[in-house]
């Protein structure tokens, strides 16, 4: 998975990558040459007493150093650009893919986990890449180069290297194997900390109102402790790695001196060679050290890559049809539910069962029912936040699943139950409905939504800032802005999901009166609780436990539906 992701997102960076490889190659060769020159100084300079030679070789050493530093600097530049660019691209890819998710995938992962996967997990992979650029090329070259140079000095000792390296690899491998499951747990526990905090920050009023700070602190403590536990575990194994590597390599150095000494004594090897051999061994040591540091990053990055892969691999359950989908030319404004049923995956009891009704342009159809009757689910089916499990939803006579998504959405204007606004300004939020809307359009929509009053009273009017979620305006104002947002869109289908509940009765009535002409040619679907809101509807659909138990005008239902009578009576009773 890690490899796959890297391959895919590194594609645009092939050229810089090879440049980096090339430059590192040059730099490494330069580094490798230095001990050789040193060996030459010893063998040819010192032993023979040739001072001129010593000086000449010194000058060469200088030149080689310069080459090395120049190559390295360019390599660092390219590495930084490439790895950070990779990170940016990967983040973008994940974000885009999540954008295509339907509501089901989103709740499957949960927003906090998706957040971690888009930021923290990408960071792990990016860090690995960056560190590896510095070493991935250098380390093997130094190792291979070191081995070759060492063998060039004396073939007879090479068996040492052939033994030392596998021993080392095995030892390191064993340690890493222990760490991988630890890293998996670690990322999950970071998720959990994220989640707890998000809940606490979002619900801070409730936490304080119920004086549950100690409890929340405990909850956080638990998550904190769990995270720390696994980090400790992983860290302990990491503490083994470095000393282990050092030990193996130091032992190899000792072996070189012993066996090398024997060979020198037997005349099979020159003493300068042995010295060089030691230097090369040191080089191989440094290379392996660097690799160790890199290897420590590998397990965590691998786990992160897996998590990212899960997101990228999740196919949205609601997808645009093959071939893009239909883009019908006409916009009439009809909605039809044809024998619609919906159940949550794995649930036995359906949320909606065989619901059928339609809304014609200019008609207002209201849906009323007790809590949990399935009203919000019903509405979510129209813009395809979910897809039906059986039956069909049609807009303008075409099954919504056959639409090109944008074409479907631009026909619909939804005001959800919980009005959510985005960080920005009043204007930017309203333009969510239609980015091309002029200020005049916005004011017009605000007028109908009975929101002109408070918006014009804001110091910056349309440009007044809105905080995340719209928390800096009251609930009623939020709802009105959400309604205005839908109005700006000028859709042919309006869906109001309990959108008038936060308004006082007077405003509610004024708003609906103002809405009537604005929505005259559109299909309007209202979910509501108050009989007063819906009694003027052309048709009322009464839902109970996911089934339609009554349909008709207010008067008709009063006569025919006991459920409806009950509702009306309860409200009249309260009013009287």
């Amino acid at each position, binding site marked *: 998975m890690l490899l796959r992701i890297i391959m895919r997102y590194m594609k645009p960076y092939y050229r810089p990558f090879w440049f980096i490889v090339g430059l590192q190659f040059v730099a490494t060769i330069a580094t490798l040459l230095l001990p050789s020159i040193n060996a030459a100084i010893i063998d040819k300079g010192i032993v023979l007493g040739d001072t001129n030679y010593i000086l000449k070789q010194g000058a060469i050493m200088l030149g080689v150093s310069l080459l090395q530093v120049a190559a390295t600097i360019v390599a660092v530049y390219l590495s930084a650009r490439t790895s950070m660019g990779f990170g940016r691209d990967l983040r973008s890819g994940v974000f885009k893919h*999540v954008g295509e998710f339907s509501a089901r995938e989103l709740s499957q992962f949960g927003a906090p986990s998706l957040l971690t996967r888009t930021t923290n997990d990408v960071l792990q992979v990016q860090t690995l890449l960056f560190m590896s650029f510095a070493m991935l090329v250098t380390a093997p070259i130094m190792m291979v180069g070191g081995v070759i140079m060492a063998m060039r000095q004396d073939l007879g000792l090479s068996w040492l290297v052939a033994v030392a390296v596998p021993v080392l690899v095995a030892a390191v491998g064993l340690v890493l194997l222990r760490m991988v499951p630890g890293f998996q747990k670690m990322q999950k526990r970071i998720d959990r900390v994220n989640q707890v905090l998000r809940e606490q920050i979002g619900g801070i009023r409730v936490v304080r109102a119920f004086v549950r700070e100690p409890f929340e602190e405990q909850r956080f403590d638990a998550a904190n402790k769990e995270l720390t536990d696994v980090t400790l575990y992983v860290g302990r194994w990491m503490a083994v790695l470095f000393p282990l590597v050092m030990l193996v390599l130091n032992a190899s150095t000792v072996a070189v001196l*012993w066996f090398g000494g024997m060979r020198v004594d037997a005349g099979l090897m020159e003493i300068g060679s042995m010295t060089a051999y030691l230097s090369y061994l040191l080089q191989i040591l440094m290379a392996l050290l660097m690799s160790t540091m890199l290897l420590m990053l590998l397990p965590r990055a691998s786990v992160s890559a897996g998590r990212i892969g899960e997101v990228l691999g999740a196919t949205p359950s609601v997808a645009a049809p093959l071939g893009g989908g239909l883009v019908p030319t006409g916009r009439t404004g009809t909605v039809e539910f044809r024998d619609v049923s919906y159940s949550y995956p794995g649930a036995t009891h359906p949320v909606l069962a065989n619901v059928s009704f339609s809304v014609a342009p200019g008609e207002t159809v209201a849906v009323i029912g007790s809590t949990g009757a399935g009203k919000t689910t019903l509405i979510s089916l129209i813009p395809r936040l979910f897809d039906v499990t059986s039956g069909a939803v049609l807009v303008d006579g075409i099954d919504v699943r056959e639409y090109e998504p944008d074409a479907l959405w631009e026909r619909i204007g939804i005001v959800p139950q919980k009005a959510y606004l985005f960080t920005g300004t009043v204007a930017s939020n309203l333009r969510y409905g239609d980015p091309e809307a002029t200020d005049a359009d916005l004011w017009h929509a605000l007028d109908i939504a009975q929101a002109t009053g408070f918006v014009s009273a804001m110091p910056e009017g349309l440009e007044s800032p809105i905080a995340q979620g719209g928390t*800096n305006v009251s609930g009623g104002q939020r709802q009105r802005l959400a309604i205005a947002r839908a109005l700006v869109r000028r859709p042919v289908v309006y869906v109001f999901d309990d959108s008038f509940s936060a308004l006082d009765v007077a405003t509610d009535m004024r708003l609906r009166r103002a809405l009537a002409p604005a929505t005259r040619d559109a299909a309007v679907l209202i979910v509501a609780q108050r009989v007063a809101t819906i009694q003027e509807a052309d048709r009322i659909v009464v839902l109970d436990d996911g089934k339609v138990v009554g349909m008709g005008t207010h008067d008709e239902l009063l006569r025919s539906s006991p459920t409806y009578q009950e509702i009306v009576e309860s409200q009249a009773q309260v009013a009287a």
Partner: protein
Amino acid sequence: MSRRTAAAASAEAAATTPKSGRTMKSTERVTGGGMFGRSGGVGQKANSFGPSLRRLLSHLAPHRLKVGLLVAAAVVSVALASLGPRILGRATDLIFGGVIGKMFPAGMTKEQAIAVTRAAGQNKVAELLSGIDLVPGQGVDFTAVGQVLLIVMGVYVLSSLLQFVQGYLLNDVVNATVFGFRRSIEEKLNRLPLRYFDAQPRGELLSRVTNDIDNVSQSLQQTMSQFLTATLTVVFMLVMMLTISPVLTLVALLSIPLTMVVAILVMSRSGKQFTQQWRRTGTLNSAIEEAYTGHALVKVFGRQQEVQKVFEVENDAVYDASFRAQFLSGLIMPAASFIGNLNYAAVAVIGGLRVASGILSLGEIQAFIQYSRQFTQPVTQIASMINMLQSGVASAERVFELLDAVEESPEVVGQRLTGEVAGRVTFENVSFRYEDDRPLIEDLSLTAEPGRTVAIVGPTGAGKTTLVNLLMRFYELDAGRITLDGVDIAAMSRAELRTNIGMVLQDTWLFKGTIRDNIAYGRPDASEEEIMGAARAAFVDRFVHSLPDGYDTVIDDEGSNVSAGEKQLITIARAFLADPALLILDEATSSVDTRTELLLQQAMIALRGNRTSFVIAHRLSTIVGADTILVMEEGRIVERGSHEELLQRGGSYADLYRSQFEGAEQAA
């Protein structure tokens, strides 16, 4: 009417929470955290590496013992490791001596051998020979070599062991420190005033607690172990080198200040970039969090492309800062390495010359070269670690910003309410405004007798939610006081106050747990019976039984398995269970159908018995049964009385009621 609504609306515009940054009250300026994260923002401190680093390290102080131990282990370990090459050099000398020795016939003495060489005209070689352990005729003394090597092995094994101990302890220390950081933040969050949370996007705070702390942890872990080892290695190598040749050591020493100069030059620039990087990461985090939270809306309004564009802008900004930061700080290592190589070259040349003239032995120069290699390597390492350290410190600064933010006024361990809390609430000349230039509540006085229901009505923005905020002490008064049973609520602890008030908000808030746990949130020690009782009273029982897991159903994050109305019922059950003296209902039942609402009201009346209730609702149906109705407009109470009294008066209340009645009449 419209002018009044407009004015009321303007009051409401400032009602719930202030638009941050503008005309905030000077006494309660929020430090840290950008405004909505978009712009550069408030609280942009200069990058102060030194002090921040010191502050960060001071958090390690509680673990002094372990730190001491690990430093000791490190010192010994490095000392041993640095002895290694020296001893190895001895072995090399032995071998070299043996090799050269073989060239001479046995029986000769060393002086004779040197004389012979000089006589042969090879003066330089003769000088070389005088520096080594020459036993003519004898080959390499492998017993001696073997002994030396065994000692070396022992030294190395011990060194590795101690290194492990050091790493182990360091791991403990860093983890404990980071654990402490997270906990400090959590505790801090509970002391911050509400306006801090209202002033910035959730993602910004989250970024500090997760991304920034993670970064600090990783930086500490990776730099501290290496830093310790590297610094000690440098010191020891220097000592070793001094014992061999002071002159050569001087050459080596030159490289240190050179490296430091380069490092400092680069660091100041890269430091700024790191700060930028982590700040922009916070901003990006906010953008992502918001997009994911409002995902359905983005989709339904077909705004995915735009959101993507906004994301790209922030994403690119992060890329820009991070690439610069990494590049700049990545320059240190090659520069240091170059200086190291220069050093290496100088040592090779000068050293070679000194060996040729017999001042140094071959083994000594070999050891010296090994030392200087092992000396420059850590210096380079230290330089490159600065990179990681800077990044960590930049994140630490953001964490400190949070920890330094202005807190709520400290708790008064003061008055407690003795005996049965009657629930008599008074507001005495209360004044409050969120922003200096926008008056909200002025000189408000009212009394709520125990057991009475007070309904507060009025257009949105009249200040109703604010009354609740003040009663709960989510915000502090500007003037006047509020009392509960005669005791000033500011004179008691907030916990004491809030334990006696039960609140049901317009916005439901449930955590990811079972339904049972959520109901028992206010009273964790409640018995199953009590929980069931509260559940029945709030009609939660009805729908819970239709769920497959019943009360053990876990309410998930996006809440798709429980409808909004059902959530409301659960929060109401929660309030019932808490059974407080005072009830506050803030437009609570708006998401519940009127059929259920009626039943709820009946249950609430029963529960209200001898409890004081404040009801803020828009539905007159909920208000009509109240003992006192307060009509608010623009922060002032314009009418006060019972339903009948107000109707008779024919004022704003009567107007409101008639419009509702009109509607309901047609329904009957």
